[in-house]
């Protein structure tokens, strides 16, 4: 191993050797951190497994999905965290007919090192979710999003892969009992390696949160610096009235490729949040969205024509962190209207990354 590492001329062997060394160092650091911090510092393996059945305008397909999250704290200030996505698509050969066939793909959503300096500043390096508006960072997790399909405007401000490779600063600028002002600012370099793609960009987000009213307002900006440079901007809003188990969320985003918004309301059919009655486990969701097409740009993944869509969904939260949900959506555009049905079962898991004594 040492002889290979000392010779950079043999590229493949040198890379393999360095990879082994990096992994060795990573495990040694994790082991030392765990021992130094005792039982409470144990890394956790979390995430979700889901099975999604979809019928999109008459075309059926199924998606088994696994999204593991690893979080390893090192002391009180350092965290290493990562989320991957292993996803399969099982579809009919000719769309609506023919035998079923499947494809699998894996990608890395984030693998980042965080240094929590203080409440005002956390420094992040590595691959992280691009902080544009709120959907990408907060609602892409399988076990969190209310509706399976992301909003139409999701790709605005999150090109190329919704993840960025670079550095980020985030934190709370000002915190008072009645409000706080939070921010995130980042840069990303271009990366074309399969499953690790990222665009060259800079940007940021600023949010204003009023905790007692459960209201948050924010704005986002991104300058995409790869190929044709352009600006993307956005606004977001969320409201959770303390007296009612209702979540209202909305986003607006604009780019040369188009602009649009989505507005979603989700409500538990019970008088309080966290109710464990059968009716309290039921949650109704409604989302409306409109997209107005701009200048067509290849690879921006936005519709080429104006598109409207509404979705109605129902979530049922079973015991043991299992959730069943179904939704119906209808899309309207000049390319054709259509119905989209989704049914999903999700299991959210969380356990220590290695066994130990339960306190």
């Amino acid at each position, binding site marked *: 191993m040492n002889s290979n590492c000392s010779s950079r001329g043999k590229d493949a062997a040198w890379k393999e050797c360095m990879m082994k060394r990096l992994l060795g160092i990573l495990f040694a650091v994790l082991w030392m951190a765990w021992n130094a911090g005792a039982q409470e510092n144990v890394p956790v393996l979390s995430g979700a497994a889901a099975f999604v059945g979809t019928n999109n305008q008459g075309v059926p397909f199924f998606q088994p999905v696994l999204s593991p999250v690893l979080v390893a704290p090192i002391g009180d200030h350092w965290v290493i965290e990562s989320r991957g996505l292993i996803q399969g698509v099982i579809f009919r050969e000719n769309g609506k007919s023919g035998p079923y066939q499947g494809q699998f793909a894996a990608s890395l959503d984030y693998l980042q090192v965080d240094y929590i300096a203080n409440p005002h500043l956390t420094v992040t390096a590595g691959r992280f979710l691009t902080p544009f508006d709120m959907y990408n960072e907060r609602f892409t997790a399988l076990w969190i999003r209310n509706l399976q399909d992301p909003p139409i405007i999701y790709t605005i401000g999150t090109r190329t892969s919704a993840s960025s490779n670079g550095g980020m600063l985030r934190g709370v600028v000002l915190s008072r009992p009645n409000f706080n002002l939070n921010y995130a600012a980042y840069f990303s370099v271009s990366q074309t390696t399969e499953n690790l793609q990222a665009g060259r960009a800079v940007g940021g987000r600023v949010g204003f949160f009023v905790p007692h009213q459960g209201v948050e307002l924010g704005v986002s900006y991104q300058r995409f610096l790869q190929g044709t440079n352009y600006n993307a901007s956005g606004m977001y809003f969320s409201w959770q009235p303390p007296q009612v188990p209702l979540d209202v969320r909305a986003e607006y985003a604009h780019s040369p490729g188009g602009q649009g918004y989505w507005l979603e309301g989700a409500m538990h059919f019970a*008088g*309080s949040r966290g109710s464990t009655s059968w009716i309290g486990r039921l949650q109704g969701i409604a989302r*409306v969205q409109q997209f107005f097409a701009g200048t067509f740009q290849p690879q921006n993944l936005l519709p080429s024509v104006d598109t409207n869509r509404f979705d109605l969904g129902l979530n049922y939260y079973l015991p043991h962190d299992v959730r069943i949900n179904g939704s119906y959506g209808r899309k309207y555009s000049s390319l054709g209207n259509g119905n989209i049905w989704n049914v999903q079962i999700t299991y959210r898991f969380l356990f220590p990354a290695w066994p130990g004594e339960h306190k």
Partner: protein
Amino acid sequence: MKIVRNLAFGVLFLTGTVALFARPQSLSTSAQSHSSSKSGAARTADNREGERKFQENCGRCHTEPQAISPRETKAVMQHMRVRASLSAEDAELIRRFLAP
């Protein structure tokens, strides 16, 4: 103007839905009903404050995990300090609420 008109229609639609289904309830009552489902253990003032912090910060995005052990809470809270920009004090209150 079209986008503004449609957005206004959406807001009215949601407001109507809230008015139809909302059953106002104070936060303290909410906390009581929730605590009664939690193995009957008495809640301290810290727990109630922790629950309030959970609802204000974490509850904006997701529901409370149904099972979490003290061994896991450190990592979970470090993760959420980064995601939600939680202060160390708020993180500690939420940690005690999740795994007292």
